[in-house]
């Protein structure tokens, strides 16, 4: 029997990065804030999973980072969506809508048999 946690973890793979891009599309933010939001939404299991993902998005040029002075006096590392990241997000939205509808249809058909 595959646990719910395992199913969720497998499904999240490949999706979380686009959720990160979508959040950044709403404005630049720093790691802790991003991690807290993703975890609250159940999109990541552990906060530390965010940073390898961010390193990969940075290396791919989908995101850029910058140290910006904060009210606390210590600079914060902010992540910002790049034009390339924005394009990737648009592509994902289209693919996801198609895939989501297909999965929903399949699940509904099976359920009504």
């Amino acid at each position, binding site marked *: 029997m595959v646990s719910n946690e*395992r199913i969720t973890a497998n499904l999240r793979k490949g999706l979380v990065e686009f959720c990160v891009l979508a959040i950044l599309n709403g404005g630049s933010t720093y790691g802790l804030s991003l991690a807290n939001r993703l975890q609250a939404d159940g999109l990541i299991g552990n906060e530390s999973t965010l940073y390898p993902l961010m390193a990969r998005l940075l290396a791919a040029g989908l995101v850029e980072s910058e140290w910006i002075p904060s009210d606390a006096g210590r600079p914060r590392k902010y992540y910002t969506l790049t034009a390339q990241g924005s394009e990737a997000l648009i592509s994902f939205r289209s693919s996801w809508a198609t895939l989501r509808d297909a999965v929903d249809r399949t699940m509904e058909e099976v359920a009504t048999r």
Partner: protein
Amino acid sequence: MRDDMMPTAGQAWLQAVEVELASLGAGDRLEIIDGLRAHILDAVDSGDDVTTVLQRLGTPASVAEQATSEFESAPKEQPAKSRRALPLLAIAFTIVAAILITFLPSYLATSVFDAASDPAPPPMTESTAEDIEVTYDTPSAEQLEAVADNEISEDEYLQGFESYRACLAAEGFEIVVKEPRGDLLDFAIPDAAVQAGADARCYGSDFKQIDILWQQAHAETSDTVALLSDCLRTRGITPSGDVTELENQVRELGLLPSDCN
């Protein structure tokens, strides 16, 4: 970023993560450490206790496992993983271990340093056992003997590497040896050996603790230091100090350490 604001337990945890991330490229490793460091400082600034913050982040070994998985799921650019970039340790490894064991719950101090004293994995619930795969090192008697005096001779370093190479060869994998970088051996491990778990087994059994102690003692030739130093020199800056100071020098130029990759 001012490292003097980082609690000691946080610094020790980050250094343990850096060791565990040895199989990643230096740029990716620096970027991950940079993000984690900012996360810890922001969480502590917001009033969280550092021990709680580190517990939420997980063990250094589990962070490394997630990181490896993240980069393995991405398109591969290299057929083999390089181990040449085992990172610099600014604090003696034994001190790091002592700090972690003193300040953190015992399950947070895993794999790299406590395998010898605690070879039995802690009991796990069914669901965690399914979701988390933790590698526990079982160092060979030869490796334990080599690290017993906390010093590694060149012979012990080379012998440890040869044992590691022979162990992988026995499992059908060949290490690609490159030109040495300073005092450090430079070599690449076939990706298949990593995927099969043979690399983790052989490295833990024959070489890991030796490698870490050797690199700690020859930190000035570490790949990370070389990378950051080259980065500064090409911009007309004379590099000085340990890896933290070099990172600060890079940041003063308005760059991130990962920009030096």
